[in-house]
């Protein structure tokens, strides 16, 4: 009977099987979000202390790329765009994408929509190592500057994040066979410990060091330049390009660890892959922009509510969505109290918390 059905399907392709619904929704979601992201990038690039109009932006880009022979704009605006505005927007996009996709994949791995890079120690570990490097750098290693410095900080944050995550993972394996609950609890313990150490260091720091550390631990894209953009690009690209390949396995994980294993998912490998890829994105982001909370938590929720829980759409969507949210948040953070600047971490937490609570409330309400 099945054979007949299938033969019929093979001969008659026009049969109404809901085949492409899923793929369309992945591509659909990706193109809608890409369009929004592009608009946000243009909006963000034009907005600021020195406002650039769309026409001017177009001219600036045309001239730089060699399509226009004359420069029909003020030289100052071009400089602001190429040296200050654009790297900052690029950094916001990269950091947002890294945080978004890391949040979505960790939530999938822990089968817990509340899981966040902050929860399992990635952010804390990254902060700790970055703080250590900042302190050492100011005190002894004034030599690490520019490109070298940015890469060192990225690398240190990534190593810190990876080490903490590994430690959490090993601890949870010792205590509870790698169960997810133990892993989360271990993450909380490690977080508290690393938080204490970071706090202790702020205590020991000099005024100058303190200002750097505080500003940086509240999160800011203020230090954006092409160097920092180059420093995070490889990390975030790795995360964003390879993570979607794990979407099928993450979908199966929804059924539970043992059922996923019965369907051919090697849990050990999957855990390792997800942790490393997520750590790369978060570590690099922390290194250049400090700890920016709630992006990795709220963005996947929005994407899930809008496009469904399939991880293929979710991962791609969270990367794009994270980029959108952070670009907008950064635009607000540098314009709302101009000429001063609001640390972006404060902004995302202020806007993110009520929104997150609303989502939780809404979910509970829908279940009743």
């Amino acid at each position, binding site marked *: 009977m*099945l054979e007949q059905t299938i033969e019929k*399907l093979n001969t008659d392709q026009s049969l109404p*099987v809901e085949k492409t619904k899923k793929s369309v929704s992945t591509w659909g979601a990706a193109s809608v979000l890409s369009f929004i992201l592009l608009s946000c990038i243009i909006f963000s690039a034009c907005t600021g202390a020195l406002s650039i109009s769309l026409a001017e932006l177009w001219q600036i880009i045309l001239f730089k790329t060699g399509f226009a022979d004359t420069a029909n704009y003020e030289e100052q605006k071009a400089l602001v765009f190429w040296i200050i505005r654009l790297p900052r927007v690029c950094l916001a996009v990269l950091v947002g994408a890294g945080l978004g996709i890391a949040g979505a994949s960790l939530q999938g791995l822990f089968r817990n929509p509340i899981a966040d890079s902050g929860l399992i120690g990635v952010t804390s570990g990254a902060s700790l190592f970055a703080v250590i490097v900042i302190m050492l750098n100011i005190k002894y290693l004034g030599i690490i500057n520019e490109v070298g410095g940015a890469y060192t900080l990225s690398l240190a944050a990534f190593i810190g994040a990876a080490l903490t995550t590994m430690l959490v993972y090993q601890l949870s394996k010792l205590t509870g066979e790698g169960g997810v609950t133990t892993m989360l609890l271990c993450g909380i313990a490690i977080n508290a410990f690393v938080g204490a150490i970071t706090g202790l260091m702020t205590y020991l720091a000099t005024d100058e060091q303190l200002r750097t550390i505080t500003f940086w631990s509240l999160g800011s894209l203020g230090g954006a330049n092409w160097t920092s953009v180059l420093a995070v690009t490889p990390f975030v690209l790795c995360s964003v390009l390879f993570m979607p390949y794990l979407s099928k396995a993450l*979908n199966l994980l929804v059924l539970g660890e043992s059922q996923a294993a*019965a*369907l051919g998912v*090697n849990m050990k490998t999957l855990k390792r892959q997800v942790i490393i890829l997520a750590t790369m994105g978060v570590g690099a982001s922390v290194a250049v922009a400090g700890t920016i909370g709630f992006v990795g938590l709220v963005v996947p929720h929005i994407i899930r509510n809008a496009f469904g829980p399939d991880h293929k759409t979710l991962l791609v969507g969270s990367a794009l969505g994270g980029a959108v949210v952070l670009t907008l948040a950064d635009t607000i953070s540098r314009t709302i109290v101009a000429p001063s600047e609001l640390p972006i971490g404060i902004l995302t937490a202020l806007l993110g918390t009520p929104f997150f609570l609303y989502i939780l409330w809404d979910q509970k309400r829908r279940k009743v």
Partner: protein
Amino acid sequence: MIEISNVHFGVKNKPLVQNINFHAKTGEFWAIVGANGAGKSTLMKLLSREHVPTSGNIYFHGKDLKKYKLKELAKLRAVLAQQNSITLSFSVQEIVLMGRYPFYDSQPTQRDLAIVDHCLQKVGIAGFKNRLFPTLSGGEQQRVQLARTLAQIWEVNDGFILLDEPTTGMDLLHQYETFQLARDMTGKGFGVIAVVHDLNLALQYADRVLMMKDGQTFSAGTPDQVLTEDNIKAAFGLSVRIIQPDDTHFPIIVPDMIPVQVAVSTKN
């Protein structure tokens, strides 16, 4: 064919399963019965390779189970676990399609989708195809999981289906339909091994019964050999009577107890 020889499994020197031996062939329906904590689910986990035996061997189609890759196993046997909670709002079709994941790369083929539809029909929930899984009742969810298990094994030759209490939460009709379905699958050349709580269902549908007690084989063989009044009394601690009504083809197991209501009314 699954061959289990001298299998032991324990956690921290506490034996959970000891000295289990049996051969399950394709085309056979094995029911595993036993009291709570007798080691039934642990045995199922050993068979599905979630656990690896501390000693002894499990051969799957003549090859040591340990030597298979998980991806290979996924194409040879399907497992339905006891606990299946899903909180994310996947649709029924998406869940059943997960059973086809081991067989395609990024996009399901027409054939995969046709199998999904067919399996949904088999368990009688074709109408729920686009419903969201978490909104279904417990028994309906279990039927979706069963459909997913079937979808995984559908095109496999000599495939095995491992079911840990497949009828949890199902109503009477669907319990019987599920067992009938398992029976049909053995007719198509699949091997079925299921943990069964309802002894009457085991008696009626199984080809072979493995009765476990304290992690060990208490008795194994055909249903009439294993499911006797003495064995059930010893393994479950409950006196039963096996009666053969004139108008049924199979005997029925009933508890040999005076119902509470009757007891109370005679006292008065």
